């Protein structure tokens, strides 16, 4: 137990040091660019908490990140490096718009139908690389990267052809119908009902992964496919089910984002939440229960740097560098390893003695 504690401590420490390094980097950049570095740093760090609506912004942004993080979590746990969640999210948003605009339904039912439709389409998209892998041994990472472009252009085609509101004056669909919106649930923010679904999804994925047969099969087959074959766990089921579930969540996430945060569909490029999901899942160490925490963290530094760039001269682009640095150090398994080894040796020795 001693050792486990040391590992936990060091994982925590690594997280803190990683964050400290990225903040230090931010400080250096700010100093180089801005006249009043300390004030700017304060804006970056504390700005996001300065008003209810800004805190709201963090949570609003964390919602889609949580979904795609969960999707990636279950897909990668099955050892399928499938990046098609990106496509699922985009197409989910497109389908959500289509159903919202063209299929009038009562409030409540409308949302359910949309979740289902975009979830299904998202699931189907993520199944494509899985099928290509099973049938043609095509590497799912490569095929999903290519697939994302195909999905993006197909989605744009659908919007352009069927959904675009030529009165809008910009590239946007008809307005999302009132009956399908996800209402805000916290006053003075735009935090919408999607957060409830996100929490439910976290619980759902946690239960699937650790309390169901499918989850057991996914975890075992994901770590050793030979083992699964040999013990009679169906690898096909694992691949298809994990990709379908992940894709479903990804697709549904697209619809929730559109219904909760947008008036009209207006993406002209993919918003990259699928790739963000990979960051989230890594930060959370593929633990479903940690996904929302990672999502909130990422959302926090993004909102912080947004505020920073709005109020100072620091260009917003720098945030991607800061994010990447934080993620890199957190993901570096051997970072601070020397000290960890030292602590472990010491602990082991005291136990011996």
């Amino acid at each position, binding site marked *: 137990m001693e050792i486990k504690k040391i590992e936990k401590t060091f994982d925590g420490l690594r997280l803190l040091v990683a964050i400290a390094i990225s903040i230090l980097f931010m400080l250096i950049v700010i100093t180089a660019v801005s006249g009043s570095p300390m004030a700017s740093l304060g804006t970056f760090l504390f700005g996001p908490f300065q*008003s209810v*609506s*800004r805190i*709201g*912004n963090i949570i*609003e*942004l964390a919602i889609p990140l949580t979904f795609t993080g969960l999707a990636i979590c279950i897909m990668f746990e099955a050892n399928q490096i499938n990046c098609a969640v990106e496509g699922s999210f985009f197409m989910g948003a497109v389908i959500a718009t289509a159903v919202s605009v063209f299929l009038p339904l009562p409030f409540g039912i409308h949302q359910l139908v949309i979740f289902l439709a975009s979830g299904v389409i998202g699931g189907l998209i993520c199944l494509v690389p899985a099928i290509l892998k099973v049938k043609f041994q095509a590497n799912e990472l490569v095929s999903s990267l290519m697939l994302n472009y195909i999905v993006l*252009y197909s989605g744009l085609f659908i919007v*352009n*052809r069927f959904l*675009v509101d*030529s*009165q*809008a*004056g*910009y*590239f*946007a669909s008809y307005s999302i119908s009132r009956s399908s919106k996800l209402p805000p649930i916290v006053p003075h923010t*735009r935090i919408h009902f999607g957060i409830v679904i996100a929490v439910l999804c976290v619980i759902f994925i946690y239960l699937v992964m650790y309390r169901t047969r499918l989850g057991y099969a996914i975890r075992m087959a994901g770590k050793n496919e030979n083992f699964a074959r040999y013990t009679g766990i169906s690898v096909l089921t694992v691949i298809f089910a994990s990709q379908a579930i992940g894709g479903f969540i990804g697709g549904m996430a697209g619809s929730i*984002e559109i219904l909760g*945060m*947008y*008036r*009209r569909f*207006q993406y*002209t*490029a993919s*918003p990259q939440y699928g790739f963000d999901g990979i960051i989230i899942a890594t930060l959370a160490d593929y633990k479903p229960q940690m996904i929302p925490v990672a999502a909130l963290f990422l959302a926090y530094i993004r909102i912080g740097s*947004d505020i920073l*760039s*709005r109020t100072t001269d620091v260009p*917003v682009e720098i945030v991607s560098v800061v994010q990447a640095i934080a993620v890199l150090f957190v993901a570096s398994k051997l970072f601070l390893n020397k000290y960890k080894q030292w602590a472990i040796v010491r602990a082991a020795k005291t136990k011996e003695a």
Partner: protein
Amino acid sequence: GTKADSTAAGSSAPSAADTPAAGDKTEEKGLKVALLINGVLGDQSYYDSAAAGMEAIKESYGCETKIVEMGSDATKYEPTITEYSESGDWDIIILCTNTLKEILQEIAQDYPDQKYILFGARADYENFNMSNVYTVDYLANEGAYLAGVVAAGLTTSKAEGMNEEKVIGFVGGQDVTVINDFLIGFIEGAKSVDSDIKVITSYVGDYVNTGKGKELALTQIQQGADVIFQCAGGAGTGVFEAASEKGVLAIGCDADQYEVLKSMDDPLADVIATSVMKRVGVSIERAVGMAIDGTLPYGSFELVGVKENVTGIAVNDNYKTIVPDEIVASEEQAEKAIVDGTIKVSTALGMTTEEVSEIRNSVKP
């Protein structure tokens, strides 16, 4: 050559800023103006032009200015605009495009004391109480029409670099309404010169892929195009490169791109026969000037185009050297016709996707 002037002097619009009066306005310090854009700077056209307008406001009226790039994530727009409105620090908040219009329509009612200028859109004054918002939009199609006249004139002429075929090209960023508004005007203008003219249309797919922009232009040139109009933001620079490589001509967009490139000593400038201008910056400067004078009609909408000298084509040294006199003459004639209303240029605003693609396909080679 009044069109080449950078001052805005709309003949009908109430004019306060038509003479740049840098010196005597600086005393009136204190007006704080913020520009919130739903993108990032560096497109060398729309947003940059607006930014130049802000710079001019600072210079001319001594305003304190700020530009906020809200990026492409649409979920950030509403909180940012709200935050700026709430702070009360800014006398005027300037917003742009239809994307922000819908958000502003809701926010503006909540902050009746805050003044807004919205350009590049037409606000819905009937359904929303927006007495604190002034809106101005541009007739880009009119400028593009003139470019079409010039392009068609060139391709059928014996000017340098022009081939036998009556083919011109259009490279757009994306197949979307704002871009297609240029396209429709361009095609109409070209056809007014010669109804058999062919226009090859390609879209880059985004506004950044310069390589693709160049590749598409090269392909068009290979198919016989000798004047190519680019509306592809940053990717459009690739079109100039292709034109320069193959010895044909190009037409720029939004700003006078010849002058922009020339000022950087860029040899590419020479292939730019003219540019379709949308003098966004000028219209901002003009509006703020009117606001200072207290003459800005908040609560109303203005549509400005060739007539107001906000859109149009760039008549610069290069244009004068490259374009033969008879084409210059026919362009001037078309311009007059637009100003006096004898020519009504179609617009892509309100057209369905099919209608646009029908027009586009009808002139494909």
